[in-house]
């Protein structure tokens, strides 16, 4: 079943065409990679998919339904959640609070919550144990009460992953999950991403510059360059593709 797909996505910033006629399709239960040289339009496409960016033409579909008019906060309710390239957390708040915000869509009626009516007590408890579950899954259970700004970089990346996971998504969009991490943190995050996919059955689409991550983790890769689709295929196919090699390394003289 196709989870998320887009067709003919074009985004212009003034005279600059960030994406032109981009198309991709993400099937349920796999890990997808989106790669391309700097400035290829990967993050723009990501923002289009998560509805943080409107496209000038083209459409985005989720389970066959057009979601062009959805607003960013509605995406989580559909089952799509995302992380950001530069860590985007509630930095003054504790790890637990960050994860709890991620679980916001499970919180129930806000007015019942304001007055802590009996109808939401159970939900509030469930929310808390859900947050603990996710924290323990990503081995953050010893950092729950620490403000995330005091955590090491790799942990912050994990908190962001945890926040995205807390909403019980079906698809998770990871924007450069290992950018800026050291090799040990990269190894950990690789395992976490695999686990999210294998154990929890969540479809993953990730943008990444770290080729070892992309080649080892992804089942299928889309390559874009100058805002257009360049190639797609399995990691083995992509690493042999002359067009991709040219895009990354330049033409042979």
């Amino acid at each position, binding site marked *: 079943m196709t989870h998320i797909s887009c067709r003919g996505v074009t985004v212009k910033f003034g005279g600059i065409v960030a994406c032109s006629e981009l198309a991709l399709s993400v099937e349920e239960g796999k890990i997808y990679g989106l790669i391309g040289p700097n400035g290829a339009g990967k993050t723009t496409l990501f923002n289009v998919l*998560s509805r*943080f960016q409107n496209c000038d033409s083209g459409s985005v579909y989720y389970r066959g339904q057009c979601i062009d008019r959805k607003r960013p906060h509605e995406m989580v309710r559909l089952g799509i959640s995302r992380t950001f390239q530069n860590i985007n*957390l509630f930095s*003054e708040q504790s790890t637990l609070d960050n994860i709890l915000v991620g679980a916001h869509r499970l919180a129930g009626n*806000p007015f019942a919550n*304001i007055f802590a009516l009996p109808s939401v007590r159970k939900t509030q408890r469930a929310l808390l144990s859900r947050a603990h579950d996710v924290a323990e899954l990503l081995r953050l259970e010893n950092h729950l009460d620490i403000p995330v700004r005091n955590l090491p970089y790799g942990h912050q990346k994990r908190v962001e992953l945890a926040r995205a996971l807390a909403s019980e998504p079906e698809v998770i969009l990871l924007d450069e999950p290992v950018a800026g991490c050291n090799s040990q943190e990269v190894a950990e995050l690789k395992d976490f991403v695999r686990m999210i996919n294998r154990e929890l059955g969540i479809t993953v689409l990730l943008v990444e510059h770290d080729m070892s991550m992309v080649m080892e983790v992804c089942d299928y890769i889309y390559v874009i360059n100058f805002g257009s689709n360049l190639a797609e295929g399995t990691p083995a196919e992509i690493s042999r593709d002359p067009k991709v090699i040219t895009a990354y390394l330049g033409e042979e003289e």
Partner: protein
Amino acid sequence: MSENVGRGAQRHPPGPSQVGPIVSADLLRKRAAIAVLQASFRKQNMILVGLLFLTAAVAPALPFVEDWMATQASLVIIYILAAQGVSILTGQTGLVTVGHGGFLAIGAYTSALLAKYFAVDLSVGLVSGGIAAGLIGCVLGLVFLRLAGAFMAIGTLGFAFFVGTIVNNVPIFEGRDGIQLPHSRMFGMRLGDFGFYYVSLATLGLTTIFVYTLLRSPVGRAFRALRDSEKAAESSGVNRLFYRTLAFTISAFLTGAAGVLNANITGYVSAETYGDIWYSVDFLVATVVGGSSALMGPFVGGAFIVMVPFYLEQLADFAFILKGVVLILVLQFAPAGVCDLIARPLREQRQKQLRRIQDDAEKSPPATLAAFISRGGQ
């Protein structure tokens, strides 16, 4: 490395993605221990606040208490109430407001007009003044939806001036001549100075419980999420439009209720006091001095704003200067507020306790919980 990941994890059937029961025994046990400790912290907090209110409730019976103290204490309570409103918007949601004097005026005038023309009870006045301010707050929240930071401060300042102009010039508000309120009655009873004090105290008690519940709920978390990162909040499913407007509404409601009490304590409202922006500035200062994100911040800040000029009456305008100096000192040395400064040792001690529990939990797993787990965690 990889065999370590998700230790204790159970493979899930394909289909809807649920994290489900993935926790191992020692983790669950640790979780339970932490929950117990945190519940005891909450209890301690509640006892502290309860004692504070109890002291305030029995204080009038003390021998050295005089009538003027009741009025002064009521004034402190009014400022606390207004500062609670400001702290929800500025401290929690991160929208700096320099216009809450406008909501105070709306509450005060609603109460004054209702009392003058319909002789309504103070109980009705409190609710309707709060609701009137809340409604305007809701509209203002929608109008200011795209403002942030300094622009929000300027926008709300404009709102305070707008309200000032209205009460100065629209005939029904009687401009600088002002409106005289009939003597305040609560549930039909004439209120003396102490009666009014108890009404204020009871109102503050209710709002404090309300604010406490609100801040601990997912709604409070959504407010703080919007404060710290709108992008991250929205990607977590927080509806920015809804929660911003809600914060504005609740904040305006609380300050509006303070306005009702403020009109009734003096028995008089006029454009001279409510047309000015000094109230707005005072509330913001109270919020900043007390600490904008703490529940008790408004208490410290409200007392500060009322009591400093009171004790420094002889110094006349010098009191204003002192206020400014203290504000600068607070911003310099306790940017999270005086309340945070006081509470820090307590918080650090509690964090240590939490840490100890976590470390202990890793060492020795007790049998009872293992049995609990072996039953399938039921």
